[in-house]
């Protein structure tokens, strides 16, 4: 079989440009999905710090909360929210591909599965919001 292989010294080896992810919208969306994890990770670190401040008492917590109300942090949190929503939706789209739901011979269409997951996310978010408002009294 090796006899049929071309002479490697005569081949042209193309190089992938560093900007490959700008060539197609699907590549760009993929990179944004990967980038979303950075925002989510930073948000989680800030959130853990907030919980830690809570354990140090009300004054420490309020002081930290005030720092977070700076415009820079507000912008960051809006961005983090957008990225986490984007990440969640792409995650649900992936779930439909990775774990198809079959009932007998019927396979749930991918869009329906993604839609149901998004609906569940919205429902859980509403429940959390109601609980939050009720507990805040």
């Amino acid at each position: 079989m090796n006899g049929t292989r071309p002479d490697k010294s005569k081949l042209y080896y193309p190089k992938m440009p560093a900007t490959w992810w700008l060539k197609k919208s699907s590549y760009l969306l993929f990179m944004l999905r990967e980038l979303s994890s950075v925002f989510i990770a930073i948000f989680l670190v800030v959130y853990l710090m907030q919980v830690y401040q809570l354990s140090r008492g009300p004054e420490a917590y309020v002081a930290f909360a005030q720092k977070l109300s700076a415009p820079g942090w507000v912008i960051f949190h809006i961005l983090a929210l957008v990225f986490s929503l984007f990440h969640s939706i792409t995650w649900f789209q992936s779930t439909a591909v990775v774990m198809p739901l079959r009932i007998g011979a019927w396979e749930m269409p991918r869009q329906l599965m993604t839609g149901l997951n998004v609906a569940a996310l919205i429902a859980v978010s509403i429940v959390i919001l109601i609980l939050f408002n009720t507990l805040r009294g």
Partner: protein
Amino acid sequence: MAEPTITLNVTRYRPGQDQAPTSQRYTIPYKNDWVVLDALNYIKDQLDGTLSYRWSCRMGVCGSCGMMVNGVPKLTCAAFLRDYQQQEIRVEPLTNFPVIRDLVIDMSDFMDKLKSVKPWIIRKTEKPLSEGEYLQSPAELEAYQQFTQCINCMLCYAACPVYGLEPDFIGPAAIALGYRYNMDSRDEGKDLRKDILTGHDGVWQCTFVGECTEVCPKHVDPAAAIQRTKVDAAKDWFTSYLLPWGQK
């Protein structure tokens, strides 16, 4: 009235002569029912006999004529000129592969990878012919049938940035075919494919860009095969730790 024409901008590379590929423009008659492969055949027959490219069946079965058409991996026998009207058509060799000449790529890396996943039915013990064939129910066939449609055209490799960046990655088609045999109820070779499918250059290299599935002309969905193999591998890993006695 003058006959309508269309221009193809075709990549040329002459081994031993050119340092890097160049491009060459050919203006040819436009026919509404022509595909890009017809246009290349016209160039080869009428304008420039030195142009090299691969093709065979002309009907989307053999998988030989895959090229980049305006930057997208396509079977040129299924890419109609009418879909690219009003624009110049750029025809390049499939990306992520070494180029032998003009539009012809070196597929030996793919052939090695394909072989490495053992894409054939493996039995621990073959039963004698006298006992008849290995039977399979329609539901068992359904579990893998979609993945049998792969024609090894390598469009998925050209669409996969992971393969472009990590050439050792086994890649979409080879994994999809490994998965196809793993899912076949007659097969008993899953353990023999495990090292290659879930090893260093296997499924975990995939970051699920999903373009392999988008460009597949036969709707094989290699991205799903890869992600499902990941789930299987993760399940196997957990069971081997949690239920070591349950391992085969």
